[in-house]
């Protein structure tokens, strides 16, 4: 009896302990300070192994292969796993893709990894190292360089049988950003991201007398005019800002900066342009030319419905169904639904963009090839998707056709075709050499400092720059002088 009791107790204890093992093992993959190092070293080993394996495989296969344009990635997996941190784009893409290719219905899966780009990066590491199926994953302009320059993370698109000529139809800058430092094409973008100024049509007519986007453009054609218009609105006694947030304004300004944040030696570049912007931001903030809300907060959307701002700086991916503009209008049937129009704004600009990259672990070569082909190479299917999602696709030919046909009507913009406004500025986008691997952090540091300066928490511009430099210098891998 006693023995039975004892052994029962022992079994129970072991059972509990084993659950503890299970739980801990699981959570250790999401890593805290101390445990992340052994984890990461093992993860690197694992990914090295996997890359070795895949290179072995590919070398075996390449000996069999004759032409370079052959898909070297085997089709052994059941499903194409597509990793991203938001379903906004990816779910729509999968829907559109499987509608057009019924054979692939149910064979493409969106795997959610976190709720922001930062979180996604952390989870990518776990996915790359673990046993999970990873075929394609999405990279953001702010940190794409870290990935395409690392062969453990990304495989050349040539493995899928693509040649560089296949992407001739894309915007050049998207191809050069997707090419690593050795000239190997690693990632392809399905979108181009020109931006404009999205404004309230009813208020523009009431306050400024502007009836059409072209008339409105006269009030916002450059920054001096933009400021003058903002001043006029305030002088007329309207409590309305012209720009949505300081964060939104900086996106426009950042794009037009002639320098990247870092030079070739990863040294931080702070130029006069930063001062010009900081002073403008302060002027705007103090005079109410820009709202005092934070970008990406609830208030950012709320100002779109209660006459607090004349408009937003939005780019292409802010204008589709379920996007930022939709939120700012309060959704379908919202207070300002369809009461916006888009115009080019004070300066041409573009904001971010996303790229599809191929994992060395990919085991669905055929679907992966067809998927990338569908959204980036093939002009006719890209056009389909452009109309499906109201997306500015990475294919000037397709976009030109849509603009010429006038077949795109965006309900959020009261039926206006945003592509016709943005088509021209898309042709001028040149982001090559303007992005660095550290952009998201540097941008955050700069915007925080500028906001403090505008608010008056930091007294002078010099103090602001010192604070910005100290913050940026904390980022390992860049130098600040």
């Amino acid at each position, binding site marked *: 009896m006693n023995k039975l009791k*004892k052994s029962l*107790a*022992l079994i129970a*204890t*072991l059972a*509990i*302990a084993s659950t*503890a*093992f299970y739980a*801990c093992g699981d959570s*250790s993959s999401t890593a*805290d*300070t*101390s*445990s*992340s*190092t*052994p984890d*990461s*070293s093992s993860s690197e080993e694992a990914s090295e192994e996997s890359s070795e394996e895949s290179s072995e495989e590919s070398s075996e296969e390449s000996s069999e292969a004759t032409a370079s344009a052959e898909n070297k990635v085997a089709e052994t997996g059941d499903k194409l796993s597509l990793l991203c941190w938001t379903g906004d784009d990816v779910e729509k893409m999968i829907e559109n893709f499987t509608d057009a290719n019924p054979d692939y219905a149910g064979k493409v899966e969106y795997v959610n990894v976190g709720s922001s780009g*930062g979180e996604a*990066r*952390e989870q990518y*590491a776990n996915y790359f190292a673990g046993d999970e199926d990873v075929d394609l994953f999405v990279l953001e302009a702010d*940190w794409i360089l*870290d990935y395409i320059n690392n062969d453990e993370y990304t495989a050349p698109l040539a493995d899928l049988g693509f040649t560089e000529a296949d992407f001739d139809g894309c915007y050049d800058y998207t191809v050069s950003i997707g090419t690593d430092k050795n000239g190997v094409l690693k990632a392809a973008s399905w979108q181009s991201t020109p931006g404009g100024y999205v404004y309230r049509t009813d208020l523009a007519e009431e306050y400024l007398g502007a009836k059409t986007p072209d008339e409105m453009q006269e009030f916002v054609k450059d920054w001096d005019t933009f400021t003058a218009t903002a001043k006029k609105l305030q002088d007329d006694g309207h*409590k309305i800002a012209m720009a949505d947030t300081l*964060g939104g304004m900086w996106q426009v300004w950042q794009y037009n900066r002639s320098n990247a944040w870092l030079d070739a030696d990863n040294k931080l570049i702070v130029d006069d342009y930063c001062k010009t912007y900081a002073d403008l931001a302060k002027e705007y903030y103090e005079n109410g030319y820009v709202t*005092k*809300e*934070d*970008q*990406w*907060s*609830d*208030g950012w959307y*709320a100002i779109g419905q209660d006459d607090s701002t004349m408009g937003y700086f939005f780019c292409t991916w802010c204008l589709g169904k379920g996007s930022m503009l939709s939120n700012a209008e309060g959704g379908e049937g919202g207070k300002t639904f369809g009461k916006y129009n888009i115009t080019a704004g004070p300066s041409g600009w573009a904001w971010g963009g996303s790229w599809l990259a191929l994992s060395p672990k990919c085991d669905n070569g055929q679907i992966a090839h067809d998927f990338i082909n569908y959204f980036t190479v093939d002009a006719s299917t890209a056009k389909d998707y452009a109309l499906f999602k109201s997306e500015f696709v990475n294919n000037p030919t397709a976009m030109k056709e849509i603009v010429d046909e006038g077949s795109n009507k965006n309900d959020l913009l009261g039926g206006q075709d945003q592509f016709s406004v943005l088509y021209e500025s898309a042709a001028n986008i040149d982001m090559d050499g303007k992005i660095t*691997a*550290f952009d998201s*952090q540097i941008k*955050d*540091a700069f*915007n*925080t400092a500028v*906001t403090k300066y505008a*608010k008056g*928490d930091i007294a002078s511009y010099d103090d602001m720059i*010192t604070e910005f*430099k*100290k*913050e*940026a*210098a*904390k*980022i*390992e*891998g860049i*130098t*600040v*002088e």
Partner: protein
Amino acid sequence: MATAAQRRIKSVSYAKYGYMFILPFFVVYFIFSFWPLIQTFILAFSENGTRTPGIIGLDNFKTILAKPAESDFKAMGIHESFWNGMKNTLIIWFGNFIPQIALSLLLAVWFTDLRVKMPGKGFFKVVMYMPNIITAASVAGLFLSLFGDSSYSVINTLLRSGQEPWKIITSCWPSRILVMFIQVWMWFGNTMIMLMSGIQGINESLFEAAEIDGANSTQTFWRITFPLLKTIMVYTLLTSMIGGLQMFDIPYMLHTGNVVNDYIKTVAVFIYEMFHGNFAKPSFGYSGAASVILFVITSILGALVFYVQRDKDAIEKKKKQKQAAKEWKRKQKGGGFSI
């Protein structure tokens, strides 16, 4: 004379079962707690900017502790944000612990007082403990929508409509006071329950005797409750201090956008940001060093609390006992071979 069987029974030890039962815990502890702990110490002496750091010695501590040259932005940034974190941690901890213990003590005394016959005691206890059950993320979200910077937050809609919104979350003292308040609100129920159990552990006859002797509530509190509650108070102080120095969740989450508010950034947030903020090149070294510094500070403060609160009578008694024992031994020796 004992038989062989009897002798065997005498020597049967049940200790091995005890060891067997606690073994799983220790195995789990060593793998998931002890080794990471050692690893943290190793990381404190390791280089930054890589996921497989090598040892570089004391440089991380030097950067964090010693004031670097004004022109060295990197060292300056790390040095300043660590000390800013330290300052914030201490300010927020003091501002939260003192009101919290006062409030909890008051409520605990009321709830346990024999003379106060409050109806619905259980209900109040549950309600006061409730904030502790809500996850910190929800609490942060709640307070952001109540006290947020946006002109659409509750406080700005009610009190500042049509005017410049109050920027509580991004201003220095308002944000700190808000965090203190949240911490008090979240934890006073917990502390109260702990103090109540401490008070209930005091022999009831003492309170009765005091009542018969005509002591009023104040006298009872200061002469009986408070002195006898000391041990529990020390325990509360200690746990609160350890928890307070590691305060992370609310300060980290109480912001909109991507950037954590500088005025409420604690050391724990600094540690987290150093190894986590820069994905490609994490600064494990600075994180480790800051963790070790925090560990040392916690140890010192803990030891200090124990030293101040030590039982002086017991120590005195022990000393006397020891002396007596020595004396006795000496006598034994001096007495030679007496029988």
